[in-house]
């Protein structure tokens, strides 16, 4: 098999890790946000501690923990891929939750009050008034995280996932060094596509100021 093809196969794994993590981490992040903003203090502190632990330790360590910790409790992790996804989803959900919280807290209280005096329910105020403004405000920060996620998928190799860097380093080990550099091109191409999509989204949201 030629090196380009083998790198492409590896990058397919990166893309899959990226897509699944993004799709699952956004809703999980929202749930964590609700927890960290809860009025019920114990829940709030549990969630805040959780976010602190996830953001305060290396993702690489979390990958090892996801793979090996279940074994300590008598249920060895059967799939390395599952372990990688669990670590990535939880890690990114924690970061997303802080972005969501910042976005929600940045909406002026007057927006809630205006909705309330117009007879909207709390749910309507959130979905019809606040949510869209939050999305507009957090898009740049989310874009940053999403770009970082593309590259962080390469960390999955530390628990033995054959993603693109693992494929490339196999060539390097046999004395062919160029695929290692070539792997960077896949990342550049993918992040270029994502950057274009994100800046399109930002432009679309810029139809109003504020």
């Amino acid at each position, binding site marked *: 098999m030629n090196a380009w093809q083998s790198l492409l196969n590896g990058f397919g794994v990166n893309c899959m890790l990226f897509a699944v993590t993004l799709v699952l981490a956004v809703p999980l992040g929202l749930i964590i946000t609700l927890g960290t903003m809860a009025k019920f203090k114990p829940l709030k502190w549990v969630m805040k501690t959780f976010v602190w632990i996830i953001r305060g330790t290396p993702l690489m360590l979390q990958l090892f923990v996801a793979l090996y910790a279940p074994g300590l409790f008598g249920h060895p992790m059967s799939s390395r891929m599952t372990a990688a996804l669990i670590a990535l989803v939880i890690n990114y959900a924690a970061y997303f939750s802080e972005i969501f919280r910042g976005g929600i807290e940045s909406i002026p209280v007057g927006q809630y009050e205006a909705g309330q005096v117009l*007879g909207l329910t709390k749910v309507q105020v959130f979905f019809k008034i606040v949510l869209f403004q939050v999305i507009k405000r957090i898009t740049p920060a989310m874009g940053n995280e999403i770009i970082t996620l593309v590259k962080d998928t390469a960390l999955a190799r530390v628990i033995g996932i054959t993603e693109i860097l693992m494929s490339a380093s196999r060539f390097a080990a046999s004395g062919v060094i160029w695929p290692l550099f070539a792997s960077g091109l896949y990342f550049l191409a993918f992040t270029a596509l994502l950057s274009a999509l994100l800046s399109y989204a930002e432009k679309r949201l810029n139809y109003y100021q504020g």
Partner: protein
Amino acid sequence: MSILDVKNMHKSFGNTEVLNGVGFSMEQGEVISILGSSGSGKTTLLRCINFLERADEGQIYVEGNLVFDAAETKNRSAAQIRKAQLNFGMVFQQFNLFPQYSVLENITLAPKLLAKERGDFKSNKKEIFSEIEKNALELIDRVGLAEKVNNYPCELSGGQQQRVSIARALALNPKILLFDEPTSALDPELTGEILKVIRALADQNMTMIIVTHEIGFAKNVSDRIIFMDRGVVAEEGSPEDVIDHPKNERTKEFLSLVDRK
């Protein structure tokens, strides 16, 4: 029968007593301006009437019906509070328009959501929505913004934004319209257009409570002036009595410090 009765309102924030037993009543079509220095409790009174704050003591009656009683041990449901809230329209100092919606959408949003609760909504959706839009366009015309129907709030001046927010409040046909310092966030040359709109509403017999610093306007538009000081009504009466011949020492002091034109 009075359209609004506010009785013995008390409200504290922490150890600061902001309202210390305020009460008044008003008739259908009456315009009351509330004056007073900063911290006298005017805005808090308005926010308590409108359920944005919960008073610690006191009762509110609308057309003789009790809509709020601080002494009730059982909290009223969110739905009951919403229903009571809809007796009032509110115009904020900072406008609080929804930035992502056009002028028209700002005005139709709440009426359209409320229409969903109507029994005949499913069968008459089209007619109901077009009726709401027609009504909104009339209101926009009334506040002189017919050409801005599809503009976004960020494209409007402060005065225009405030006129939209008045139209938005009117779209729900409130019994009483509340204004919280409607011109305080505006440049002086823009306050005139808001005052003109309020004047026109007064002429159409709208019942209004206006918290304001515009003494001259208050005198011109109001049937009655309430002067608040340290959380109580210090003086009330006709504009001529309160503004031109104040009896209370605090009213005299306040009026001597502000521009009366």
